[in-house]
């Protein structure tokens, strides 16, 4: 039997777009939010001036598939690894972390070692980002073997 009339669509992927630190450049982040929404993602945007703690806590509560970090101020080498570190502490290493903004090429490889899966700079076609997410989210969730999470209780 063919399900001819019911198109079984996969669930929408959930993405958190976050701006860590004091960087106020939010145009790029907003462009990404819009593009992902229009490509069928459920996008949570928490605005500027987020601490890495806030980002990790939000990612946990929202059970997102991926986190996109946006930074143009130059503080990415400090802030991005802090976020991935806190995700790890919560047992969330299955969450895909990607980024964008003004990030020099020589930093990209270093960030990758710290758990930032991919970085997209200015001029990247939005479709490239969408295709990357669609391809990566499923496979990352399937392959990563997380350690036991540090459980956080509601107090």
């Amino acid at each position, binding site marked *: 039997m063919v399900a001819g009339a019911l198109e079984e669509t996969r669930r*929408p992927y959930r993405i958190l777009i976050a701006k860590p630190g004091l960087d106020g450049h939010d145009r790029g982040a907003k462009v990404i939010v819009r593009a992902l929404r229009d490509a*069928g993602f459920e996008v949570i945007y928490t605005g500027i001036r987020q601490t890495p703690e806030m980002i990790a*806590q939000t990612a946990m509560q929202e059970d997102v598939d991926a986190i996109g970090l946006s930074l143009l101020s130059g503080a990415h080498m400090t802030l991005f690894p802090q976020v991935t570190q806190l995700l790890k502490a919560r*047992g969330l290493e*299955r969450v895909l972390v990607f980024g964008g903004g003004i990030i020099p090429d020589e930093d990209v490889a270093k960030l990758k070692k710290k758990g930032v899966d991919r970085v997209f700079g200015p001029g990247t076609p939005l479709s490239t980002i969408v295709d990357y997410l669609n391809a990566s989210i499923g496979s990352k969730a399937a392959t990563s073997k997380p350690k036991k999470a540090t459980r956080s209780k509601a107090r």
Partner: protein
Amino acid sequence: MPVKTGSDLSERVRKGDIAAAARAMSVVVDERPEADELSKAFFPYSGRTQKIGLCGPPGAGKSSLAGRLIGFFRKQGLKVGMLAVDPSSPISGGAFLGDRLRIQEHATDSGVFIRSLASRGMIGGVSHTIFGAIHVLEAAGFDKIIVETVGTGQDEVEIGRVADSVVSVTTPQLGDEIQAMKAGVMEIGDFFVVNKADIPGADKAISDLKGALALGRGHAPKPWEPPVLGASAASGEGVAELGRALERHWNFLRQSGEGKRRLREQHREELSLYISRRAYRDAMRRVSDKNLDDLLEHRIDPASLGARILRA
């Protein structure tokens, strides 16, 4: 996440494990196969926690006010769970979930859990799986539950079948909206809040609202007269009054039997949503390509085919 079976997950939720609650929420809202098992595990804990619904037109300040209310409850040592619904695009299926942006002050408070939900095609201000999401919060032991609706200001009556206490939020700028509200939302509000009382025109908006409410009111006094309150989520003014009024309403619901009556309606609604979703999905799975060809060739009509599939 080390989450295997449904029962492992539900036990962790019961212990107040936030990561587990977040995952259970996904299982429920995605209608994954384990969702039924979770419903069974969580339902015994349902119906004891006050569910506060926040509705009103876009930009009225529902999220900002929710942030303030959370602060009010946290001062009393209460844990708060919140569901914030935003609309899904009917075209892409995607959604911009932006309510959380206004509630950043509680982002790292472990006694506060906020989950953004997309309406995923449901009309009426919430999502099809809203009850399941509420049951997760109930089982996780939150003391107050807040549900923020999509925010159309009209036709948002569904929240009246979901929440125990409905707060209808408006602003001084929305004088005409108040007229529009008369139809649906006016009837389901247990509280009317004129938010943004820090901008001019609040007094007039409050008296307009009181007037509109009086028009629709009969002579016999009602057991609960919906109060009209001014508030400012920006300054915090009026938030404690709203918090105390919510407490009074909760006591009223529990003492008068109205709470039980509403709970019964909520259960009916939850069942109705479950049946309509499940029956529809199961029936549509039985539709074959041949069925569609038969329709195309006029070998059968849609009503006869539909009836046959439903009986199958």
